């Protein structure tokens, strides 16, 4: 299905070729790749910062950098990785690239707002990174808890707030766009329950973004008043209340975890069926689990605050609510396992990363349920156990899926395949390095090593050094990846339009796609996961609507 380039669609005033990636382009595919490449730049910056942290922690005394620098580095690492890497990439990059295809549209609902949302990211990133060199960066961690954030050097903290406000604004604009696109821009004849799962994941994520990000923005405004105008909202010395900050902060920042993992759930739901040649198991339950996670995700925030003097009823409520989230999440995991079960698995790089995601995330999920229990949480609060848990979720979970997605959609982006051998090497190094780096941190935390401190008890040295070796492996693992994505863009094997024989709509056009996504009408894909099912069965099932447990995997 080779499609000629539709020159008649292209606007002559828009930059062409590679230049458009540096322009205020309104094309969702260009914006998606802008998000992706910008995100990867910040990933390597954040990775270098993590390298500084692990180098410092290779020995028990503070010898590699000064303590203030260590604080700045850990603050920047957290902020860069969350707000400039994971959220923009897993939402902005893949969301912008894929959602219009999935709903059968030419572009997002608000293309100009989309471009504005992307172009808020580079200035925010430059502000944040630049603050380290010019004024000294913020030192209070990515949580910016007062009174720490009020008493550490003010200038860096204010720059941090401005930067996060910009990124939050970008995220909200993106969320508005996704909600409008998924709900209102579907191709005629395409029903909600026929959408690929990533659409549902992005709808749920965007609802969380729109409801919770503004609360963080308001909170940071109040915090900036405390710093600049010396009000006392969160300053106990002036009659303020630090716990209110924590509540408002986690009202955003717990849903933020779902803003980071729900899209990853969606992406993995696209990748697994294609490479297992089986329909996605339990489509309907997948949709309702996403919606359940959205609702529950908004009412679990105080499990981050069990040691902040929370009253017993609050502890009880938030423990129960948090434990409940394991149910919809577990449903999704069993569905993925059932999708793989008996499938004709192609264990290529995309699939390896996806399967490793299942392993890593289950481990992070189990420690998450453990952390929801008050007695255990009080024991390990603010220790390396939390650091280990969190990285199993966001790195072992989301970042593995981002890599899987790059291997999976690279042929769509460029028209060329990535090298499989290099991909498998990348996977092996990443998987070993990741587990070596973060698994020991659970033991460290259980034995009482506090997080965010540059020095530690010498008895923790060995495990910390193992962790640092793991970090080094992760750094090395990015070399074959970088070489692969750069060289394959020019010399990779030509992919053809649909190298995976996929049924989802983005593959039913040329690779890379034309400016208007399809020449002519968008295809009506009512069975995006109809693998291994013959055509007659499909149409019968579509007519009777009783195929929940059968081949087509959907009602």
């Amino acid at each position, binding site marked *: *299905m080779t499609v000629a380039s539709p020159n008649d669609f292209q606007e002559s005033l828009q930059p062409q070729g590679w230049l458009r990636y540096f322009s205020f382009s309104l094309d969702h595919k260009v914006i998606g790749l802008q998000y992706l490449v910008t995100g990867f730049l910040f990933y390597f910056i954040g990775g270098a910062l993590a390298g500084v942290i692990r180098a410092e922690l290779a020995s028990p005394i503070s010898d590699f950098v000064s303590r203030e620098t260590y604080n700045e580095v850990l603050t920047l690492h957290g902020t860069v990785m969350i707000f400039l890497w994971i959220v923009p990439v897993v939402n902005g990059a893949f969301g912008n690239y894929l959602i219009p295809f999935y709903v059968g*549209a*030419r*572009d997002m*609902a*608000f293309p100009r*707002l989309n471009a504005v949302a992307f172009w808020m990211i580079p200035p925010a990133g430059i502000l944040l990174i630049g603050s380290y060199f010019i004024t000294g960066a913020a030192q209070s961690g990515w949580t910016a808890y007062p009174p720490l954030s009020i008493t550490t050097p003010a200038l860096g903290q204010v720059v941090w707030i401005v930067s996060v406000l910009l990124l939050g604004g970008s995220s*909200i604009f993106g*969320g*508005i*766009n996704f*909600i*409008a696109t998924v709900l*209102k*821009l579907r*191709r*005629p*004849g395409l029903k909600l329950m026929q959408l690929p799962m990533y659409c549902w994941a992005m709808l749920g994520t965007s609802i969380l973004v*729109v*409801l*919770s*990000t*503004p*609360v963080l*923005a*308001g*909170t940071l*405004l*109040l915090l900036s*008043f405390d710093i600049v*105008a*010396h*009000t*006392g*909202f969160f300053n106990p010395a*002036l*009659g*303020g*209340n630090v716990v*209110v900050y924590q*509540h*408002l902060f986690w*009202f955003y920042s717990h849903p933020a975890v779902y803003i980071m993992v729900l899209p990853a759930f969606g992406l993995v739901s696209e990748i697994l069926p294609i490479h297992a040649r089986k329909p996605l198991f339990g489509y309907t339950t997948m949709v309702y689990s996403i919606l359940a996670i959205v609702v529950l995700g908004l009412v679990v925030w105080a499990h981050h605050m069990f040691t902040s003097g929370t009253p017993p009823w609050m502890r009880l409520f938030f423990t129960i609510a948090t434990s409940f989230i394991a149910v919809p999440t577990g449903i999704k995991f069993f569905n993925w396992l059932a999708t793989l079960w008996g499938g004709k698995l192609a264990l290529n790089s995309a699939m390896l990363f996806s399967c490793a995601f299942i392993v890593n995330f289950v481990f992070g999920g189990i420690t998450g349920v453990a952390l929801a229990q008050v007695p255990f949480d009080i024991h390990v609060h603010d220790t390396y156990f939390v650091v280990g848990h969190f990285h199993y979720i966001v790195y072992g979970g989301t970042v593995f899926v981002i890599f899987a997605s790059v291997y999976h959609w690279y042929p769509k982006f460029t028209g060329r395949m990535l090298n499989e051998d290099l991909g498998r090497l990348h996977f092996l190094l990443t998987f070993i390095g990741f587990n070596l780096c973060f698994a020991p941190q659970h033991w460290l935390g259980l034995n009482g090593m506090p997080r965010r401190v540059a020095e530690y008890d010498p008895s923790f040295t060995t495990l910390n050094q193992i962790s640092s070796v793991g970090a080094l492996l992760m750094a090395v693992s990015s070399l074959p990846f970088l070489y692969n994505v750069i060289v394959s863009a020019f010399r990779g094997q030509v992919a053809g339009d*649909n190298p995976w*024989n996929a*049924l989802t709509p983005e593959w*039913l056009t040329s690779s890379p796609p034309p400016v*208007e996504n399809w020449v*002519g*009408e*968008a*295809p*009506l*894909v*009512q*069975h*995006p996961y*109809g693998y291994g099912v013959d*055509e007659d069965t*499909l149409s019968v099932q579509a007519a009777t609507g009783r195929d929940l447990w059968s081949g087509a995997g959907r009602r």
Partner: protein
Amino acid sequence: MTSLATSSSATAAEATAAEDHGGHADLRLFGLATFLVADGMTFAGFFAAYLTFRAVNPLPAGSTYELELLLPSINTMLLLVSSYTFHRSGRNLLLGRMGPCRNWLLLTAALGAAFLAGQMVEYFTLPFGLTDNLFASTFYALTGFHGLHVTLGVICILLVWVQTRNGGRVTSADPFGLEAAELYWHFVDGIWVVLYGILYLL
């Protein structure tokens, strides 16, 4: 494989919709409404913070939550009336009566400006400043953030007023600019009613 998943059969209406790629339904009001939900959540965060402060943080001796009621009550009436005048303006636009539409718009902007003036008078006559105590800070933050919204609203109304002139882009055939400003204005009014309730009456 492809034929299995796709169906190229389409009704005439679908084909027309697909040809005109920019021609999907106008989603701008939907987008604005979604944004206002987000904006409302910012206020909700502020309200939650204020109510929590009030419940658990005692004020220093001698300070009080009492505020003068007359001026803010007049201000509330001004905003409520301005919602009505904006509504009248929108009705007139849809009926194509541009003269009354523009007059009602101007009246709405004037009411908004009067509200802001009243707010200023209140600020200058209050016995406390921004940093005096937690209640004072919260009071100025909440009313200030709302006042910022009113200011933006008045500017939007004046912009719409300019665009409703003869040959402007807001017409009864394309009323989006006015409808968007009106939706925003009603939202700002609604926020004020809640704010008035918890700040002044509670």
